């Protein structure tokens, strides 16, 4: 069972559940932020996009104090897969489940557009349906999505293979010219060292239908489904 965490101010929670259900046939459950436990049959946790608690403080900074996050942390420490998208990524960084931070976009504006990202690591629970170097077209929509890590952390992320996705051209070339928000090293998504927690700013749940955003997001959500189903068998 997939658990989608609902914070007050989450707004892609319904879309995430719809994506799992309509495109992948997977049921999910909405878990309220005040709950202290995840449902017993939880196999994967997703923190969706939105503006948790209004994001009036640093994005995700309030959500880390939500009762449910203690349970999510326990779940992650036990090796359970946790995916954070956009605000969910921010929440995971603020909660210490992922390293680094997300800061204001370099152009100081909210940006909603389709971008291309290159898959850097394919042998993970979140990207097994892809090959390294694959280019996915997925939308971003955020005001504070510039990933930041200091030199030391960045070196560690690179050497551990924790960088999952980078912004690139449709042909897969990575460079500052196609960096939509000023992220360090064009990073669009990372995972933790253990490899079971992943966050990204682009929204795979908004790219699951041919005529509405294309289907490149299915590769990512589908990988997680494969992983959970594979584990269950």
């Amino acid at each position, binding site marked *: 069972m997939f658990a989608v965490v609902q914070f007050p101010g989450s*707004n892609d929670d319904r879309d995430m559940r719809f994506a799992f259900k309509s495109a992948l046939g997977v049921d999910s459950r909405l878990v309220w932020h005040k709950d202290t436990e995840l449902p017993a049959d939880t196999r994967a946790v997703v923190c969706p996009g939105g503006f948790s608690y209004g994001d009036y403080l640093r994005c995700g900074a309030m959500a880390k104090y939500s009762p449910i996050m203690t349970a999510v942390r326990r779940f992650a420490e036990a090796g359970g897969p946790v995916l954070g998208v956009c605000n969910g990524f921010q929440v995971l960084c603020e909660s210490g489940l992922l390293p680094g931070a997300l800061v204001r976009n370099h152009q100081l504006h909210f940006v909603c557009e389709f971008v291309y990202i290159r898959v850097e690591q394919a042998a993970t629970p979140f990207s097994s349906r892809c090959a390294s170097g694959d280019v996915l077209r997925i939308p971003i929509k955020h005001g504070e999505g510039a990933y930041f890590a200091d030199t030391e952390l960045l070196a560690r992320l690179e050497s551990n293979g924790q960088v999952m996705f980078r912004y690139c051209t449709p042909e897969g070339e990575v460079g500052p010219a196609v960096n939509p928000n000023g992220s360090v090293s064009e990073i669009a998504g990372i995972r933790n060292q253990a490899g079971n927690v992943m966050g990204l700013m682009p929204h795979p749940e908004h790219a699951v239908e041919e005529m509405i955003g294309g289907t490149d997001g299915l590769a990512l959500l589908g990988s997680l489904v494969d992983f959970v189903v594979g584990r269950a068998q």
Partner: protein
Amino acid sequence: MSELREPKVDIELAREHGLSDAEYDQILEILGRTPTYSELGIFSVMWSEHCSYKSSKKYLKQLPTEAPQVIEGPGENAGVVDIGDGLAVVFKIESHNHPSFIEPRQGAATGVGGILRDIFTMGARPIASMNSIRFGTLDDPKHRYLLHGVVEGIGGYGNPVGVATVGGETSFHECYRGNILVNAFSLGLVEIDRVFRARATGIGNPVIYLGSKTGRDGIHGASLLASAEFDEQSEAKRPTVQVGDPFTEKCLIEACLELMRSDAIIGIQDMGAAGLTCSSFEMASNSGTGIEFDLDKVPQRETGMTPYELLLSESQERMLLVVKAGQEDRVFEIFERWDLDAAVIGQVVDGGRMKVRWHGKTVVDIPVDPVAASSPELDRATAPPADLRERQKLDLASIAPEQDPGGALEALLDTPDLGSKAWVSRQYDQLVQGDTIIGPGGDAALIRVKREDGTITRKGLAMSVDCNPRWCWLDPRTGAMAAVAEAARNVACTGAKPLALTNCLNFGNPEKPEIMWEFVEAVQGMGVAAEALGIPVVSGNVSLYNETAGRAIYPTPTIAVVGVLEDWEKHAVSHFTKPGMTVVLLGENREELGGSIWLALRRGLECGLPPAVDLAYEKRLHRLLREGVSADLITTAHDVSEGGLAVALTESTITGPERIGVEIELSDGIRPDALLFGESTGRVIVATQDLEGLESLAAGCGVALRRIGRTGGPRLVIRPPQGESWIDAELDRLHELWWNALPRRLEPLEGEEAA
């Protein structure tokens, strides 16, 4: 008990409240005594132009509002229209012009918040928003600042509440230098039998206050700010602008929709202009009842608020609810879960009076109807502007022909009006809720209809917001007709059937006969078009006094049309989708350059008559587009509007995911610049793979059609049958000009911000 110290009420104080001497006399007559200070405040807001529509209602009454698909017309918070499958759409457009000029970010944000509440108050989940925003020219740093602020405000509210902004228009003209326009549209989806209304029935039923606490913000904000002209002192009114909190609104939407799934609710109303006062009066007036409530029970953000302040505060994100007695706990349970305030403040009573207590003392005791339903109706003087004939004069023979059509096209694409608006729309979440098929940039936005439980339907909804203020200034009647026709045509271009419209009527000071004349002409023009096209007016808003230092804006009746598409998988787009397709033109080219942007930009003239509008033809065109798209005969359909054929063709080549060129051959017995840049209405560029099929359909519909070219190649070429081409341009070059038109004018301010 604290002593209430209030100003003495007399005719002087009434005047300061914007009431006329006659209105004050009427108040004395209604009450049979001198009003209390709170009562005076109530009358002044309820009878303000903004709340009472006193200048406009005489004419609004004449609009067509009924059709089989209309479930609820004007009068409720928003219009409700049947789209089949047991579903209805709820929509409205509303202005937040005055506050946005004073404080652009909060003004625009609360405009979005207010229109969203109008939608979910009726039980509908808001699923899409649009806006129409107009500024002075961008050489003025103040207007660059205003544009930045308004866009940030719209996104800063719309994005967190999780409603996609799918379309809109952004334009610039000198006439908005002293008054910008911010018109916000929102649309929601509801099951037909779950529509809620502003009702307060059932004597003894509790009246419950929901949402944010009441503060001192926005007292007289919407009501008085929008009921007078601006002057040098307007800056001092900044504190009257309300402050929005989209997080609370998002929680309020979810809590209200959850509550609405129960059967506890009798009626619900949002607290907009004039807050607690207006909402309670409307609910009681709609139901022929009265309400008694106690201000001490109102959740308050600050201490020591007076009755006057509590009653007139325009604090945002608040709702008033009447539930069945005994169902209060159901409300408290849901609102506590969302950490929102909910408090019983009073009850529904018999006798049609509003009674308000504060610290055990009655501070308001007035009959509901004379205040709400029988507010003044004015019959203001009208007279055509003295220079109207002068404005409309245009002798084409004296206008030098365009010598450089390629240069003219480049110049037009480089204007902020015709250039790409991606700089604006990229700041809005266009995708949330996952149903956006065509977002900002198309002729109309198109979204899929998905039920609240996540079930997909085959239905799509198309919507477009339009107005050409230059045309309305030259001839408000034709201009308003053209706005209705264009919005409907845009909707039809997707393949959808236009269903109904909402309007936001932005004008100057109605006390001036020429402004009132513009208003009446425009309303009547809108009515004629709505009637002829079968798209009734289901909601709307009037914004008058858009005037500073005696200078009014151009009349701007903004029209938003909503239509339904039976199968969203079958729709047309406004760009070319592949090479080798036949390009045809629907409609007639006429020698009409009056009011065109070419004439304004290349000859420095705003004059002449706007292009004629043929409503019977438009109706036939709608049918052709609908049937052509449904039969797969039409894959691209793009309305020809500002900038004429040359600009419309360019848009079809450069706005798609791939740039696809076109070669066009045009001939007509009219001057080439009118052919290329004239703005005759009713024309649509279509790409088809089955010319014969389309020709036979067009003949059956009674729409003129001619083949004008073929898609393909990296260039836009437009030429006459003989001789040199008029325009032969590289798409990359045209795209660059179009794409950068707005950013290159805004960069100086961005640089300043970064510094």
